[in-house]
């Protein structure tokens, strides 16, 4: 099974190269030209096949994930070499091309506006530098910087590391997400002392796809937020002050973690189930996101993080619900893969795909409770 899993990850990584935008110049790289030619036909022209491939990959990843979490033999095998296994998984996906989202190109172009063109990205839209070649594949070029100053500051490092080379910059940005992914895994292990919690986050297919393949910066925001919650729990003033710094930094990545501000005043002295409360706070803000735009799959990282930090018990509703949500959110890409457009029936289908797994889960739980009740009564 582990071999199948690794093969699935490699397939995902290879499949992602079919999503290389046709406006991305890869003329100097023969391997990329070949991959784009061969897989591009599959992704852009044989849409039914590419949708099915995605569904098969996601299904296999979730099957393996669920088997792992149900304490099967696989879990014991992996837990014997946890570091090696997670490094292998992340490296396979690190190589992948950022498929399914154009956000990374937006991060890169915004960084270029700030650090190469030396313009304030909160005032100057990339499109205003109309001879900028990266505009050809940047989707939110008609918007000023969408993320906070912490994120803009962080992007200085990968942007400099890329040295103006497009491919190197893409992988430098992916490297930032990879580092943060590992930091998150370490934090989860330190806080829970349980490898199962690490797996709950680290092998969740949605996390793998959105963090390691598509390279969304939500992971950075969450690493800063978790560090804040750890530091605010210490009694000494210095730690609390540094915690406050981490909190502000986290809020200035994307803003969603602002809901965690009550902990600034509570600390952790009251023995509150901090991570459980944080889970619901982040879930609430996640549910509010359609007010601004829509429920993007990568927003799930906000609450998966805190689910991974709470004790995983047998029949844990919170964890089962989180998994159901992540299955639904991973399926959100399906209508776009098939239709290649965001409009039309897309929004309705995306909502249906997202809601189906949590609804099935709810129905299953209800049916199970009825069954238990009727058995005990009988």
């Amino acid at each position, binding site marked *: 099974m582990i071999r199948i899993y690794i093969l699935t990850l490699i397939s995902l990584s290879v499949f992602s190269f079919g999503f290389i935008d046709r406006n991305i110049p890869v003329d100097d790289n023969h391997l990329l030209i070949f991959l784009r030619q061969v897989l591009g036909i599959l992704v852009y022209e044989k849409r039914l096949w590419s949708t099915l491939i995605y569904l098969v990959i996601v299904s296999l990843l979730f099957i393996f994930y669920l088997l792992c979490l149900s304490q099967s033999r696989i879990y014991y095998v992996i837990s014997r070499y946890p570091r090696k296994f997670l490094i292998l998984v992340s490296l396979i996906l690190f190589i992948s091309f950022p498929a399914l989202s154009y956000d990374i190109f937006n991060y890169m172009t915004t960084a270029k506006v700030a650090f190469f*063109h*030396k*313009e*304030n990205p909160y*005032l*100057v839209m990339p499109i*205003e*530098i*109309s*001879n900028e070649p990266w505009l050809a594949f940047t989707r939110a070029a008609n918007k000023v910087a969408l993320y906070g100053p912490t994120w803009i500051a962080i992007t200085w490092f990968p942007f400099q590391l890329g040295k103006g080379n497009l491919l190197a910059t893409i992988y430098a940005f992916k490297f930032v997400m990879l580092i943060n992914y590992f930091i998150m895994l370490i934090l989860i292990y330190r806080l829970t002392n349980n490898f199962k919690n690490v797996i709950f986050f680290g092998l969740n297919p949605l996390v793998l796809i959105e963090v390691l393949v598509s390279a969304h910066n939500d992971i950075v925001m969450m690493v800063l937020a978790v560090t804040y919650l750890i530091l605010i729990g210490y009694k000494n003033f210095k730690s609390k002050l540094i915690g406050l710094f981490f909190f502000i930094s986290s809020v200035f990545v994307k803003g969603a973690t602002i809901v965690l501000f009550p902990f600034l005043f509570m600390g952790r002295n009251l023995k509150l189930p901090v991570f459980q409360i944080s889970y619901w706070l982040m879930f609430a803000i996640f549910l509010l996101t359609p007010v601004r735009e829509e429920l993007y799959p990568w927003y799930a990282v906000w609450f998966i993080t805190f689910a991974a930090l709470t004790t995983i018990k047998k029949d844990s509703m919170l964890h089962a619900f989180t998994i159901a949500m992540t299955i639904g959110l991973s399926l959100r890409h399906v209508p776009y893969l098939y239709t290649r457009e965001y409009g039309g029936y897309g929004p309705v289908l995306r909502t249906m795909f997202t809601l189906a797994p949590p609804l099935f889960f709810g129905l299953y739980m209800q049916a199970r409770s009825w069954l238990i009740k009727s058995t005990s009564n009988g």
Partner: protein
Amino acid sequence: MSKMIVKIAGILLVGIFLLFFTIDVRAEYVLPYPSYMPGHPLYRISRILDNFNKWWYWGNIARVKYYLKLADKYIIEAKTLIEYKQYLLAAGALARSNNAIVSLPVYLEKAKNESKDITTLRSIINDAVLAHEKILFNLSVATPENILWTPEKSQPTQIHLSDLLNQAIILRTKIKNKINNL
């Protein structure tokens, strides 16, 4: 009666059809509404913020936007003050608008030297200058040439408002030429 209706409908249809060919769909440059005016408690704060904003508007394109924003803001302030016959204050606002507009070609040239495409910015500035000239021309027609401004507690001041307005128009024409030659 029915023939008349058909005729009217026909004329209307032709009219609508012709409208599509005659209306210039390009949006006119829109100057801002007047901001806080002298005498308002927040006026001084808004002036301080204007100065602070200079540091926020870093980058040459951003600086062009900054000075254009100031030039627009102060020309509207000058216009409003003239309409309320506050000539001395208006002269000050006009001078501030002139100072801001002088900086436009400086930063536009810097942006060009950084290999940034300035075509759109140039066009925006041209439209803005045209809008300024229109305001200044209307004001120069409607205002007296010389005004003796007599404040309550200080010496009277002679304001050559017409000269100031003409100078502002000439300055803008020069700026326009300078920008178009970049």
